């Protein structure tokens, strides 16, 4: 059974600092997704990573995928308050469903 583990689960950052969120998964997959969720809101797609070595960047966020290590990272550069949210990684289970990590609740403080 596919298991997806994220860490840390809680992250409190100061503005302008850098940090990385990690997403490990247990079985072979080359499709990984990052979503953002604001409190009480739906899931907003951030990145779709479809191959080993894939790297995508949008603003202060950069995501990468290493399928051999079964690891994806979401790197935050020079954090700002607007990035405060919960970030989920999700892995395609190849059975027409996605399995989500537990989420990382990010708080960016001034």
């Amino acid at each position, binding site marked *: 059974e596919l298991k997806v583990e994220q860490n840390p689960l809680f992250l409190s950052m100061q503005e302008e600092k850098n940090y990385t969120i990690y997403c490990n998964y247990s079985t072979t997959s080359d*499709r990984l*997704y990052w*979503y953002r969720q604001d409190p009480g*809101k*739906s*899931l*907003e*797609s951030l990145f*779709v990573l*479809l191959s080993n070595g894939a790297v995508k960047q949008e603003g202060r966020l950069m995501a990468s995928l290493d399928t051999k290590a079964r690891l994806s990272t979401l790197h935050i550069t020079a954090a700002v308050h607007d990035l405060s949210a919960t970030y*989920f990684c*999700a892995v*395609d*289970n190849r*059975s*027409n*469903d*996605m*399995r*989500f*990590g*537990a*989420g990382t609740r990010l708080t960016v403080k001034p």
Partner: protein
Amino acid sequence: EPEVTQTPSHQVTQMGQEVILRCVPISNHLYFYWYRQILGQKVEFLVSFYNNEISEKSEIFDDQFSVERPDGSNFTLKIRSTKLEDSAMYFCASSYVRTSAYEQYFGPGTRLTVT
């Protein structure tokens, strides 16, 4: 920009009652999904639907749950006899193809409260 819509936004029901949650997927999408998120927890897959039948379902999706596409636009999730533990946010999602190349687009969710 096309989006997935869901109604109602909030549903309160008594334990043992039936509820139907409604979703209108993006119009040219072919795959439809239901997920749930218990407050403060992770998003859990319930079921996927393609070509008018269930493609996959999780262990959560037991006999109390059913899905239907009653017409060309709606996609519904029915819970036959609600339990307290069914209280959660239910998200509908759709994709043009399997998630192999296209991400799933999520609706705003329906908050179900069972009392």
